[in-house]
């Protein structure tokens, strides 16, 4: 039984359909399939720069029917052949108004997308209409994909690395000559001694959390060094240390680091291998385990130094609830605010890397900190130069710093 409302709805829908059919259809007007679009012009194929020799870049000028003329082009098809006469095989498509396509492949000979290098290739580009009619260009080529030994697009990075390396080596050599290098104090680092002392007085352990980083992360490597310094002081003060680890390689290295520190402090017998242990490689299971340790052992001091993600606040807030002094440091920018809020002291970004030099006060390590300061001054000068160049429209200065690929 059709109600009056349903009947009206059907009538309205039929009216809308009729109005829709009455609208002009641009594709239909151009009669696709009968006349293929004009082919793209000036097709060129060149070896893609700065790569391992498995790609060729194809460029062309738009078909007159792409964005103008009869506007029938919806995409371009790119074909590749080993001779100018063919046969040509389709390699990919680019949308209308595109003027470039990078034909990439792999070096694995058993891969269907294997791309042989040092082989002559010819390319054709076809402008394709909605109905599938193709306007094929003339063949361009021959071109070979070749591999390069140097990535020119990364020259600004290379120059920056060389400059910074030279600065670091210079200041390290100055430090070797016993030059007096002043480094501004960091509250977070100076609090480490105080925190270890507090733990000793209270007779409670120190919890050292290295985060979720692997041994390949620079933040974790910096954390190993700080762990060594902390463990040495812990051994001297005869307090206990707990290091729950997320990564088994990190655990192995951390065990060795703590052991070394106890030897250096003259207390090898006080070292307990089980104080540095593996928990799990599941992020929130790790958090649960560490939080449980915090609430059971009630450590006097919690140190969070390394790579942290979403677990940062879960750990730091639990530590705050447990009443521990908390010192944190990470190079994960998104997690720094959480640590700042929940911890007593936070090493922000690069301060994590500087911490080992501060704790050790070794001249060689201090030299690298001085180099960092000068590099920052250099960056400020470059930024000011870039701003000035942009204001006056000297784009070539800005281009000098552009890194491609």
């Amino acid at each position, binding site marked *: 039984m059709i109600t009056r409302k349903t009947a009206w709805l059907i009538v309205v829908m039929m009216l809308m359909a009729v109005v829709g059919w009455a609208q002009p259809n641009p594709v239909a007007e151009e009669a696709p399939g009968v006349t293929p679009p004009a082919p793209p012009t000036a097709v060129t194929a060149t070896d893609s720069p700065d790569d391992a020799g498995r790609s060729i870049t194809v460029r062309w000028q738009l078909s007159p029917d792409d964005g103008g003329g009869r506007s029938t082009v919806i995409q371009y098809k790119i074909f590749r052949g080993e001779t100018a006469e063919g046969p040509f095989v389709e390699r990919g498509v680019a949308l209308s108004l595109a003027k470039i396509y990078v034909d990439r492949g792999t070096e694995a000979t058993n891969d269907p997308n294997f791309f042989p290098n040092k082989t002559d290739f010819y390319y054709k580009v076809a402008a394709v209409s909605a109905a599938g009619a193709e306007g094929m260009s003339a063949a361009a080529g021959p071109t070979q994909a070749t591999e390069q030994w140097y990535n020119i697009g990364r020259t600004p990075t290379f120059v920056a690395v060389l400059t910074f390396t030279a600065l670091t080596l210079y200041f390290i050599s100055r430090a070797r000559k016993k030059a007096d290098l002043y480094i501004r104090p960091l509250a977070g680092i100076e609090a480490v001694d105080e925190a270890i002392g507090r733990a000793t007085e209270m007779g409670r352990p120190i919890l050292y959390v290295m985060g979720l980083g692997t041994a390949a992360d620079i933040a974790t490597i910096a954390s190993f060094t700080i762990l060594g310094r902390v463990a040495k002081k812990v051994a001297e003060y005869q307090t206990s240390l707990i290091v729950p680890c997320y990564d088994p390689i990190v655990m192995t290295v951390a065990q060795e680091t703590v052991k070394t520190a106890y030897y250096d402090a003259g207390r090898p017998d006080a070292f307990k291998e089980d104080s540095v242990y593996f928990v799990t490689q599941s992020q929130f299971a790790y958090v649960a385990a560490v939080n449980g340790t915090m609430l059971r052992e009630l450590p006097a001091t919690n140190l969070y130094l390394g790579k942290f993600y979403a677990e940062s606040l879960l750990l730091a807030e639990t530590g705050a609830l447990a009443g521990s002094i908390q010192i944190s440091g990470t190079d994960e920018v998104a997690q720094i605010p959480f640590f*700042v809020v929940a911890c007593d002291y936070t090493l922000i970004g690069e301060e994590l890397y500087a911490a080992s030099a501060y704790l050790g006060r070794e001249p060689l390590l201090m030299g690298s900190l001085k180099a960092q300061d000068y590099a920052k001054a250099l*960056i400020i000068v470059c930024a000011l130069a870039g701003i000035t160049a942009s204001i006056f429209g000297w784009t070539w200065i800005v281009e000098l710093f552009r890194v491609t690929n």
Partner: protein
Amino acid sequence: MRKEIPLFIVLVCGIFMALQFFVPHSWSQFLYRYALDWLIVIGIFALALGIWSFIKVSYDKIQRRSENWPYAIIALAGLFGMIFFGLWFMGGLESYMYRHFFSFIMIPIQATMFALLAFFIASAAYRAFRARSILATVLLLGALVVMLRFNPFLGPLGEPMAKLADWILNVPNLAAKRAIIMGIGLGMVATALKVILGIERGYMGRD
């Protein structure tokens, strides 16, 4: 020699990995992948050490009847149970038990832990936004603007609030963020150089 040989390996590998970034040649790519494969192999061996450490620590807890020792039994039961169901019991990884333990115990527990974050954010925000100093007051005002930006009931204030919030996020906030990132970049290179040159060798253990 116990120190010199590892330091030499670190020096060679470090310089190679740094240069590799600038060399797109297939040989360079091959050696890079080869080094990463080694990392995986070492990781697998280290995992065995990690599991052994976990078993040993849990077993000691049970043996010494440490505080909350029954939890160590649950942890060990979870480890061995999942190994048993995953490897041998009725279809391994596709078995009913393994999939149900994973889907109906593991995932909900992880989600619960993650959900706790919302409560911790609230308690942390309460501490951070107490206007005890001028800087804390500025922080409070900035946070208020950014939070109110997503409030649909602001009426005519909605648009100016959205613009102010965008400005806070895209100008002072982004500037500070970039400064930190630049410092981190320099710190990373400096630490890598110290490791490559053998100045920082705390990770190597005892002679």
